[in-house]
């Protein structure tokens, strides 16, 4: 078996999420160093607050302030923090029941080591210096022994949850890094393409030739394995005219409008798709005969261009439209 192809693949997305009244108040509160809870009709106080009672599903809106101090209800020592976690140094994950709340909040606890952490320990919020209205406005929790002068600076002030400038949305960024490998059939296809050959695979049952091959015949549900070289020439079976400039950096040089087409390579039983060049966009037509154009050092065709042959008869490709 040839070496497995691999390539880095980054999936990254910034979800923009609206908050609704309860989450908006909670996250705005964090920005203002106020922790808000929501009270259920049977008197439980929930932090983080939710919009609907987890037991009765009743809509709940009664916001109350709770203290930024609380008690650890369970913990776990994380000696090797991972990317994007709240602290870059070893820390404890904790569930903290804030004073005045009946439920616990998940966050990080900054502590020198696991021996300094136990269930039942008293902790308080350490606020982030820059706060935007997000759960990360709590930088982490830290040990709390009570105020030395006897007064408690952490006492809630009875905030109502009304703010002049509430946050109404958050941008939730996510980035996941993969190492993609395309599998046996597509690896063989991509390797052949780098040698400027189009190699499809034939279904042992229905005898159709698929290019690019996916490893299975979608009609018969069996593995394809017999390799068949097809093309390089083919026929445009259908096409569209693209008027929106590509956003991807790999395609910025392509001027609009351009034509993107389904092309049935000679010998293939499934059309692949590619850009058509070397001809004005408004002259591309079904039945146009085309061939791949390779650029120096590329592992795949840049585009397809007309061969100059007479157009293919519709009956020769109608099954592939």
């Amino acid at each position, binding site marked *: 078996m040839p070496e497995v192809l691999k390539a880095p693949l980054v999936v990254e997305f910034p979800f923009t999420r609206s908050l609704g009244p309860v989450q908006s108040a909670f996250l705005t509160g964090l920005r203002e160093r106020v922790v808000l809870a929501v009270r259920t009709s049977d008197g439980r106080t929930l932090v983080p607050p939710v919009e609907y009672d987890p037991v009765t599903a009743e809509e709940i809106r009664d916001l109350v302030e709770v203290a930024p101090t609380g008690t650890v209800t369970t913990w*776990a020592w994380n000696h090797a923090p991972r*990317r994007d976690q709240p602290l870059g140094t070893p820390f404890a*994950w904790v569930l903290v029941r804030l004073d005045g709340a009946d439920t616990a909040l998940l966050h990080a606890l900054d502590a020198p080591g696991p021996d300094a952490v136990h*269930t039942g320990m008293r902790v308080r919020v350490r606020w982030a210096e820059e706060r935007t209205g997000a759960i990360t406005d709590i930088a982490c929790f830290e040990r709390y022994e009570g105020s030395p002068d006897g007064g408690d600076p952490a006492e809630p002030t009875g905030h109502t949850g009304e703010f002049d400038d509430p946050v109404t949305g958050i941008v939730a960024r996510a980035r996941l890094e993969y190492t993609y490998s395309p599998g046996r059939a597509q690896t063989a296809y991509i390797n052949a393409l780098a040698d400027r050959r189009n190699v499809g695979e034939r279904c042992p049952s229905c005898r159709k030739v698929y290019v690019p091959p996916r*490893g299975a015949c979608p009609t018969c549900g069996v593995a394809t394995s017999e390799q068949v070289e097809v093309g390089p020439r083919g026929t445009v079976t259908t096409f569209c005219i693209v008027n929106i400039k590509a956003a991807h950096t790999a395609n910025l040089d392509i001027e609009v409008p351009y034509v993107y087409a389904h092309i049935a390579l000679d010998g293939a039983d499934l059309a692949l798709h590619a850009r058509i060049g070397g001809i004005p966009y408004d002259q591309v037509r079904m039945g146009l005969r085309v061939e791949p154009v390779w650029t120096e050092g590329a592992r795949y065709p840049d585009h397809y261009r007309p061969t100059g042959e007479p157009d293919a008869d519709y009956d020769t490709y109608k099954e592939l439209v």
Partner: protein
Amino acid sequence: MTRDLPVRDIAVVAFAQTDHRRTSEELSEVEMLMPVLHDVLAQTGLKTADIGFTCSGSSDYLAGRAFSFTLALDGVGAWPPISESHVEMDGAWALYEAWTKLLTGDADTALVYSYGKSSPGPLRDVLTRQLDPYCVAPLWPDSVALAALQAQALIDAGDTDEPALAAVAARSRADATANSHAQLRGSVPQGEYAVRPLRTGDCPPIGDGAAAVILAAGERARELCDRPAWIRGIDHRIEAHGLGVRDLTDSPSTRLAAEKAGSFERPVDTAELHAPFTSQEVVLRKALKLDAGVRVNPSGGALAANPVMAAGLIRIGEAAARIHRGESDRALAHATSGPCLQQNLVAVLEGDPR
């Protein structure tokens, strides 16, 4: 306790799974999946065209590959168009959907499959994307960290301790020596802390794999299988998403699902529990009231192979296969989804009296 019994008898009549491995990078998802589809069809003699309903479970996030489930359908042979559905959940929930489809009488047979390729991505981080996007996901608490919070809560409650957890790990991997599909078997060191109190030995292996099951109703099941594994009840329940709202030492959703599935009406002899972490077996044993007489995870369970999205379906398949082989007469199968056993499915399977 009275319980409405299903209006049709529906059974698991065939089960197949891949060998589960740390990586299957030489295979695409459909290439990994296809052999198990062919396996269950061959066991029953059915062809794709004979199958009344097809349902699958998978998640594109695992391999970072958009719409991978549509490509996986190539392995089924979905043309001419078949009656088909997909859940972005473990295949156990796909089986639940297929079971309801068969109950309606619209179909007499169903193909259920699921697969997961976790090797291309950072699984612990990928799974954070299923969490509450406002207050939890921005902290990126990985799957091991959340399980460790649950484990510490169990230790604090006196329900378990580190030696007891290590014993669960050792028993599971010892049992897995009899399971040629398992990824981690035999003597496996308990290792260093992953996230304390969980050690690497308390955690499931990360790997790739697939599984498939065929369901059939009534006489059709008897035609296709010498000893069908009849689904006497199946139910699934979910708990609040907020970890701090739940009692992490208990699993009321599992208990309720088991009750609705009829698990407590008579003892089971076997239980295949989907407990990816040792500590979660402690929770499940308590919720399901399993005593020492019940054979738990003879396959080695998820601690021996945990292909995400397939490991729950494999529990049902393993329980059914024991009934097929005559090694069990009444078995419980459990599947879970989400952090700290958030959502749970319980099925009760029985063989005909011998």
